[in-house]
């Protein structure tokens, strides 16, 4: 089962369409809406968790994009607890983007959050459990 927090931006043309219902019906996805608004100029914004088979999730996102919608998956953020990190380097084995890397020759483990894709691989690979997933709450306000 795959689940992801997404931000959907609806252009005014589709704001009256039953799009979320189609996600359920056509792609077998379930959803949990955390926020939904229609702005005065008729464009809409929704923050929701989409859950289902990964293939269906991808097909669903393709469907949304075909309607001219913007889909952003940056509902979450990886943070490092600087107190807990003891700079071993275990995370660098799994980090696919190089956001976690070692500064040499000091052998200090650095985290460049701009490069982080929030894949969460480091969260379990870190022996000290210093990497945390945090929901980007700013989208919900």
């Amino acid at each position, binding site marked *: 089962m795959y689940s992801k927090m997404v931000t959907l931006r609806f252009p005014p043309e589709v704001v009256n369409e039953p799009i979320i219902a189609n996600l359920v019906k056509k792609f077998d996805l379930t959803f949990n809406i955390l926020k939904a608004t229609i702005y005065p100029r008729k464009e809409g914004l929704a923050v929701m968790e989409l859950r289902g088979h990964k293939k269906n999730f991808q097909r669903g996102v393709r469907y949304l994009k075909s309607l001219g919608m913007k889909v952003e998956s940056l509902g979450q953020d990886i943070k490092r607890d600087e107190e807990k990190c*003891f*700079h*071993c*380097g*275990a995370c*660098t*084995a*799994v980090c696919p983007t190089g956001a976690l890397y*070692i500064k*040499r*020759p*000091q*052998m*200090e*483990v650095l985290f460049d959050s701009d490069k982080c894709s929030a894949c969460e691989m480091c969260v*379990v*690979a870190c*022996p*000290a*459990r210093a990497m945390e997933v945090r929901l980007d709450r700013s989208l919900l306000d």
Partner: protein
Amino acid sequence: MARKKGTKTIKEINRRIKEGKVVVVTADEMAEIVKRKGPTKAAMEVDVVTTGTFAPMCSSGAFINFGHSKPAIKASKVWLNDVPAYAGLAAVDIYIGATEPAEDDPLNRVHPGQFKYGGGHVIQDLVAGKKVALRATAYGTDCYPNRKLNRKITLSDLPYAVLLNPRNAYQNYNCAINLSNKTIYTYMGVLKPRAGNANYSTSGQLSPLLNDPFYLTLGMGTRIFLGGAKGYIIGPGTQHNPNVKRGKTGVPLSPAGNLMVMGDMKEMDPKWIVGVSMVGYGCSLAVGIGVPIPVLNEEMARFTGVSDEELFTQIIDYGNDYPKGTAHSLGLVSYAELKSGTMKFNGKDVPTVPMSSYLRALEIARIVKKWIESGEFLLTEPQVMIPTVKR
């Protein structure tokens, strides 16, 4: 005096510590000094070389006496924060091992398991001064009628809490790769398939036993840095094996010696005693250890002057060979190469990944150096040496 220049005793070094004249350098500094001036001069100039290591060391644990209850209990099963402790000792004595997972941990049922909390975490929580839930059951005797005990304990109200690690500070360790076709989760970390990465776990030139490869200056009674406090070597570790292949400099090319160490938990710092979770493998404890090595003569200067370029370890396949028990060396790699970030393996560049914190190891070596320079840490004479081989 007919003595060779640069030769000194531990007693003489201690006198220099008390006089504030001692010369202490960290092992990485010693490598530079010996490279520049040679071992003869280095032995005349330097009294002590400090080492350090900070990494998960599974064979660790603590002896705890939690004090008698009213009515009295002869505890036969004991849990600390739901982590089982060994209670087959006297009435209220237990041993909590670092790798013991919490009783309700799902383990590897959904692979790879996360092993979020275990004995190592209990030990760190205690050292951090946190409250820990103690639960005990007993069968009841005439002298110890109580059958159940639930109590919150903290380190400060325990009558006795001593860290006693049966096997720490491994002298060299394997460089782990995975030649199978799937990702594996090991005590050496996550290993990607087809040699996707190579993991190692030694502080190299800073590592205690790599700086005294024949154990000539340390043994039972040697005072060390353990978990942020002063502790002691109490003997060889449970897999101490000096009989391995050694390189030109006498340093083992594979895992060899190790140490049994102990220290008072009440003096320790949670920065240097950290509970860890190895995904898919289990719980453990990262332990900070620093051993001061007296430069008693030119030979010790040469040994402590070793650098990452001269230290090698064997590459082992943890995908097929190691689990089958048929591990064999697939080649040697230097710590200089491992620390560079990539190594050559079968003509391919493989990213190298440390499991041992060099940054923290250096910090430990510097702390021990400061302790000795300030006069608060005197060297001790080892009372019994640990087994070694002819050099």
